[in-house]
Every structure is written in structure tokens, then in C-alpha cells.
């Protein structure tokens, strides 16, 4: 995929390689790098995977690997957890005595 100059993109960097990590870090974390993502407007046409420069929303210039064009929010209210519905029913039964009050 190709990004055009001025597109809103996400870039990636490895901040610290596994062998550069802080001494106090637990073993499982030491096995992986410290990674970073920053979004901004790309300053040149480029392909996914290229090293590019972006200008962030506050105007800071950052170099990084292009990983996403037009990054979007994907978080939501999640899959329904049906147990949650039982809580209100139970509480109303205890507090208001269920059918007597209907």
C-alpha cells in the first residue's frame, strides 16, 4: 500500500533492543524490545515498511517505519458478557422485592 505526502499515518520504532533493556525488568519483558508507535502526517510518498518522516499533530518531526495508513480506533464495547445482565435483575429483586412492585 502506498501513502501520499500529507496522509495521516502511524510509524514504528524500536526504542530499546532486548539486550538494552533496564536491569530491573522481569525476565519475560527482557526477551522483547521496547517498541513505540507515533501518529502524524507523512512528509513524503512512501510504501508500508519504509523509513519515513512524519509531522505529529503538535508539529514535532519523528522518523520511523511506516506501519499504518489512516490508523483508526478499533476499541468498542466488546463482546457482550451476559453475566452483567444478571446483576441489575438480582439487585432490583433484593431491593424492591421483585414482582410485588410491578
Amino acid at each position: 500500500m502506498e501513502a501520499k505526502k500529507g496522509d495521516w499515518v502511524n510509524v514504528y520504532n524500536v526504542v530499546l533492543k532486548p539486550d538494552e533493556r533496564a536491569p530491573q525488568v522481569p525476565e519475560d519483558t527482557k526477551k522483547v524490545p521496547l517498541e513505540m508507535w507515533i501518529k502524524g502526517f507523512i512528509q513524503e510518498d512512501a510504501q508500508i515498511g519504509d523509513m519515513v518522516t512524519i509531522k505529529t499533530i503538535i508539529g514535532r518531526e519523528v522518523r520511523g517505519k511506516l506501519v499504518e495508513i489512516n490508523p483508526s480506533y478499533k476499541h468498542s464495547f466488546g463482546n457482550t458478557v451476559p453475566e452483567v445482565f444478571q446483576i441489575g435483575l438480582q439487585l432490583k429483586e433484593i431491593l424492591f422485592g421483585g414482582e410485588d412492585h410491578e
Partner: protein
Amino acid sequence: MNKDMSYEGVMSRKNEIMKEAVGIDYERFEGKGIAFDYEKMMRETGYTLEEMKKIQRSTGVGNTPLLELKNLTNLARKFSDKGKGARIFIKDEASNPSGSFKARRAANSVYHAKKNGYKGVIAATSGNYGAAVASQAAIHGLKCIIVQECYDSKGKGQPEIIEKARKCEAYGAEVVQLTVGPELFYSFLVLLEETGYFNASLYTPFGIAGVETLGYEISMQMRALEGRDPDVVVCTNAGGGNLTGTARGLVKAGSENTLVVGASVNLEGLHMASDDQFNKKSFTTGHTGFGIPFATWPDRSDVPRSAARPLRYMDRYVTVSQGEVFYMTESLAQLEGLERGPAGNTSLAAAFSLAQELDEDKIIVVQETEYTGAGKHIQPQLSFARENGIEIKFGNPKEEIPGESIILPEHPSLIKAEDLDLNKIKKSYIKNCLKNNNVKKLSNEDLEFLAADTKTDIEFVKKILKELK
């Protein structure tokens, strides 16, 4: 000149970077050994209550409603002994511009940054504080960078944190998202050095003083409503600033007899810096993973001396389980018509239990709520837990194992706050003071400081020192 940008290189410049970025010479308050002059620091670098009220009023912060939770009070009374079941009130801090009490903390910091000519502000936080700083920066026309610990090594992020990134971006902030690890602090220092922006730390005197208005308002509003001070105020406790600021505000209002209780979600057994365990927890703040380390060593924060010193003010410290807090969050929506975010309801779950111990004419105040939305809500947080292999079921919440299960109480009478041994935590703090300051012999000044910093007396400190020998 090429600066050494390695981890060790940047960390070795920590003190000079911080001095520039906070503008406080902390040396001025240091004593010879362990002691430092906390009140002098708060007096000379903070703001007066009147100044803070003015600063906050000018940006729409504070004066949030204090609501009585009559249905939850009645519910608690169903499980109380006769004559027990205190009235429960809640301070609806979600009404602040950025949706949480953190707006109070940010209002002062960002005001201070603007006044001192900084062009921008940076904060390292995955929580509500990021949104608060971004919101205040928007009002003052300052640039803002928020540094977040957001993903595990598989690129999977807590929905709650991703929502907070969105909210920061909604206010025009740049969000730097990192994987798990304490070296976030390294990235933070690099950014401070590069930009020359102000460190809107959670732990400066400005930030903590900003929360004093919350405690003060609770007293004033309660006096207007009921003609008296609250008997108990419950504060969700993580880094300690919420509790410290609120308690200081209560003192400034003259509410000397109000008991201050800290409450944290019990995440015992989970390591906060573990890549593997990062997404096994369902709370990103208000939990013991911050509460205990920050209580036993507050100066671990991103400034040389933390203004958040919870042991100075805490009368009691309790924990609740993740399942209990989720259950209470749903209860607040279903019985009180208030849909709020889970993390803020940590103290609500504790208050619901504590109310049952108190006489029914007593008043207990839950001192915050937080906003809710996609990602930051009981449904997505439970759904995310289930996707990560956490067992979710009804049962006895005392059987919950953090990282393995979330047990929703099968009956509300099972919600029970559990006391932590505060003296043990105080002992641990004193031990850390000796170790981290490398001090063998304590002066009278040190003894007095430790007594004040643990809300005890010199006799207590001496007894602990004897035990530690």
C-alpha cells in the same frame, strides 16, 4: 555536542533534565539525612487554596455535585446489623471537563507551565491524567505530549488505555504509545530534553495541591447539605496523590475528625512490568500494583520528592477485588442511574462494605467517579479479560485469583473490603527510607520526619527501628 542517548546515558542526566522540566530546586527542602521539609515544599511551590479555586474555576474544573446514593445505602442496610448502615454519598468527579478528578491536578500544573513560559507540557500516564493534561493544554493553548504504556509485545492493548489515547488525541495532544516496561521513563526524559516542555508530573506540589480543592469541597458541600462534616471519606489509591490531596483539603476545611480510608483493587501476584501479565489485569490504575509500592516508597516517582505521601494521611487501607468493583459499577448504573467508569468505583465498592460497619446516622463519602465509554466500561473490560483466558463467573469474590479469574459476587452481601496491615506498610516505608538514603544513624529531625510521614509518633518510629535492627 552529541549527547549520549543510550539508556544509561539519558538516565544519568535525569536530575538536570528534571530540574529544567519542573522548575523546582528540590535541594532547598532537603535535610541532612532522611528528612525533607514537606510542608515548606508545599507552601513555597504550591498554590494557596484561594488561588487554586480561582485557577480551576477559570477552566471549568471543580464544583462537582455531591450526590446521595439512597438505593445503595438501603441495599447495604439489608445486610447490616440493626442500626448500622451509614449513608453513602458520591462526589461526581466525572463532571469535570476531562471526565475525572485528574482535571484538578492538571489545571494547576498546566497553569503553572503557561505562567512560566513553557511552550508545552508532557505527562507520562496511561490513565485519566493524560486526558486531563491534554484538556487543560487545549484551554491554555499549549502543546501537549502524552506518553503511554499501552501494548504488550504482541501489540495487544488494554481497551481502557486505547480509549484514553483517543481522548488525549481528541484534545489535540500527541500520544506516544509504548510497549510494557519501566523504561517508559527513558522515552519520557528523551522527549523532555528534546522539546524543553514542562513535566506535568502527577507528583509535583502543583499537581497534589490541585486535589486539595476536592477535599475542601466535600466538607463545604456536606456542611451545606447536612450541617456537618463527613465521618469517612474513601479515596481510590494508586500513586497516592488522590488521597494526599483530598486529605489535605479536608484538613484545610477544618474537617479534622473525618477518617480518610484508602482503597485499592487487589492485584496481588501480578507483576506490573511483566509483558506476559500486562493484559491479564482488568484494572490499569487504582490497584495494589501501584498502591503498595508508592505507599512504601513515594519517591520512586518521576520527581525527586513526591508531593503524594499517602501514609501521612491514611487512617485505614483496604482492598477490594476486581469482581467486586465491576459488580458495584453495574450497581451504580442499575440502582442509581449513574453510568460511570469502573476504576473510579474502587472506593465505591469499599464504601459499600464499610457503610455496613458504621451506625446509620454516619456519613461516608466516595470521593470520585470517572467518565465511561467504549473500551473504558464494564462490558469491554470483562470481554477483554475473557478473550485473554480469564475465567469470569459468579461466586465468592474472596476466591478470585488476579490474572486467572474475576469472580462477580453471587450476592451483594459478599462484598467485603479487606484491611491491609497499615503498620506493616509503615514499617516497610521506614525500611526503604533507611536503605535508599543509606543512613545508619538517625537525627531527631529524621525521627520527627518519619513520624509525620507515617502519621505516627516518635515512639512508633523508634520501635520499628529496633525491630529492623
